[in-house]
């Protein structure tokens, strides 16, 4: 591929992402293109609410692929993530097979056939006809042991089930891994992935997102909403509002019929602030005077 076609593809991908409802800066589009080229997993880090998960959804929409999601949690083990035998059906089958004429080996083969296999996300992802987008969400919540297990899958794209043998991937899924950084991930995992860090959006990008996702908000109000949220993010808060909060707040303002953000309306802004500020301490950090001052500056 030459540089010119690459630049063209970059622009095209960016447009497609925008059509899918995701505003991507060129840097992210470049990384996604590279990910498609190299077939490597993409590790995305960033604070909560900056749109990490949305990347996978938008990618699935652009590629018209199925999105398979594995939500990680503490104590997630291989069975919950890969496969499990359907014990109830197997037990039932054992009862039914008692009067069967076939040999024991055959019966057993039958018992451990794919019919009794429950596919969990990871097995599902590598055995489809079309390559899906596999989203492994919040991997930092899972244990290190699971991370090692995952690494094995990501390097070979095969999975061994003792009773069935090795399952080879029919397709290679596009893997997007997100992390909130509550735990240090292993270097081995980081080495195997492309890396992208999503920061809070700047004014222009957030405005574009608000215009796209909340078309009911007037241009001027959208401008003010974004300016207000941007200045709230500069205050030292425990939980800074993400893009989802901005959109929630815009919807709340719209619902209450507030058409402009200014110092006079500080009281009404305070009523809706629950959509933006999610902890009590943060709420205390934004008393009426501060809100009025921020609103006046919009």
């Amino acid at each position: 591929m030459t540089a010119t076609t690459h630049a063209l593809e970059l622009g095209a991908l960016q447009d497609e992402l925008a059509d899918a409802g995701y505003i991507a800066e060129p840097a992210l589009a470049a990384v996604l293109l590279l990910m498609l080229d190299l077939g490597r997993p993409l590790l995305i880090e960033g604070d909560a609410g900056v749109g990490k998960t949305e990347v996978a959804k938008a990618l699935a929409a652009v590629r018209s692929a199925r999105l398979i999601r594995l939500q990680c949690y503490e104590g997630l083990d291989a069975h919950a993530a890969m496969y499990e035998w359907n014990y109830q059906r197997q037990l039932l089958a054992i009862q039914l097979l008692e009067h069967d004429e076939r040999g024991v080996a055959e019966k057993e083969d039958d018992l451990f056939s794919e019919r009794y296999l429950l596919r969990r996300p990871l097995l599902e992802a590598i055995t489809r006809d079309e390559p899906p987008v596999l989203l492994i969400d919040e991997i930092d919540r899972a244990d290190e042991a699971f991370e090692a297990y995952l690494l094995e899958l990501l390097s070979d794209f095969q999975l061994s089930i003792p009773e069935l043998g090795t399952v080879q991937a029919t397709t290679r899924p596009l893997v997007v891994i997100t992390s909130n950084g509550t735990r240090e991930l292993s270097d081995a995992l980081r080495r195997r992935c492309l890396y992208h860090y999503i920061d809070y959006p700047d004014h222009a990008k957030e405005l574009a997102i608000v215009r796209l996702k909340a078309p009911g908000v007037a241009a001027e109000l959208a401008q003010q909403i974004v300016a207000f949220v941007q200045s709230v993010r500069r205050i030292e808060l425990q939980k800074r509002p993400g893009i989802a909060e901005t959109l929630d707040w815009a919807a709340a303002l719209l619902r209450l019929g507030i058409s402009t953000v200014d110092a006079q309306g500080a009281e009404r802004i305070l009523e809706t602030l629950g959509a933006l500020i999610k902890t009590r301490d943060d709420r205390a950090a934004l008393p009426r005077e501060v809100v009025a001052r921020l609103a006046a500056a919009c």
Partner: protein
Amino acid sequence: MLSLVAPEFESRAAARLTGFAGFLHANGYAVGGADAVPVLDVAARVGVLDAPTLRWSLRALLCGRADEWQRFDELFDAWFAPPNRWQRAERSELERGVVGGEGAAGIGGAGDDDAGAVSRPQASREERLGSTDFRALAGREHAIEIEALMRQFARRLKRLRQRRETRARHGRTLDLPTTIRRSVGSGGVPLHLAWRDRRRVRPRLVLLIDVSRSMADYSFFYLRLARALGAELGDVESFIFHTRMTAVSAALHDVDPWRAQERLHLIAQGWAGGTRIGESLAQFNREHAARSVHRRTAVIIMSDGYDTGDPTVLSGALAGLRRRARRIVWLNPLCNRPGYAPISQGMQAALPHLDLLAPGADLASLRAVLPAVLDALG
């Protein structure tokens, strides 16, 4: 368009590109010589003339964590824009010498590094102050006792269990899926039972050691404890603080005692000065906590609690740490003095957030509180 340019330009560009991974390695990135090949591969795909795209693509390829990501642009410019190149590379070598390995990355952005390079000559007074004391780090007295105590501590720590369950040979509850699965072999009769039991997961330790002047009598004792513990458990992280928090794991846990001394020498700036516990902890929360502290981490603070800063800052910082960490234990060397009560402003602000406040001025008192500490960590 790599293929259209003159061959010698092409080879020069290739040489520059191959060197980039090594340059990042010299700046503390976790990349190696083997990364030169993917770098060339990526450059061939996106072209070397489209600088922004090349930058974004290489950034995704070569960065592995947020702090690397943030420093990348500067390093990219430094390498591919010739005039700054050597100057920057040398400066980064210098910084690595000062703080040493891993610690350098955690301490702060490029701005901080600048300040560090400038202020180092002025720190010589402090270094002299510290020089006699640092020898105590490898002192022979009590060395064997300290090591034995920490080995004991580490061994008991490994026995702690957490709530998560796993399959076990003998256990508390029946593992039904596995039992049924095993029963298939015996015609549905569950001959071989499978059990689940609580998994042993040792909490990971983060040690925050106060080295301010008021702690002068005790801080070396704690540093030696930390060093001995680091030798037993691979994943102990140690920080020292007075008016700011500094990562010392790499230096303190260096296996060579002489080298550990030398490396600590270099970070001794501000040693034995005033204390701002609250601000130091707040800085820890900002810069290190996301990487070092998670739900399996126990934080052990070793300080006398004499804080010259605002107590609300301390209280807020501890509350923040509390939300991240599994346990917070505070070892206070003054605690077992007759008539001591935690009435200093700092201790008052800290108490509501602690799982345990324990004395620990010397080996004997520490040995006495060890069971309580283990209980609190479990």
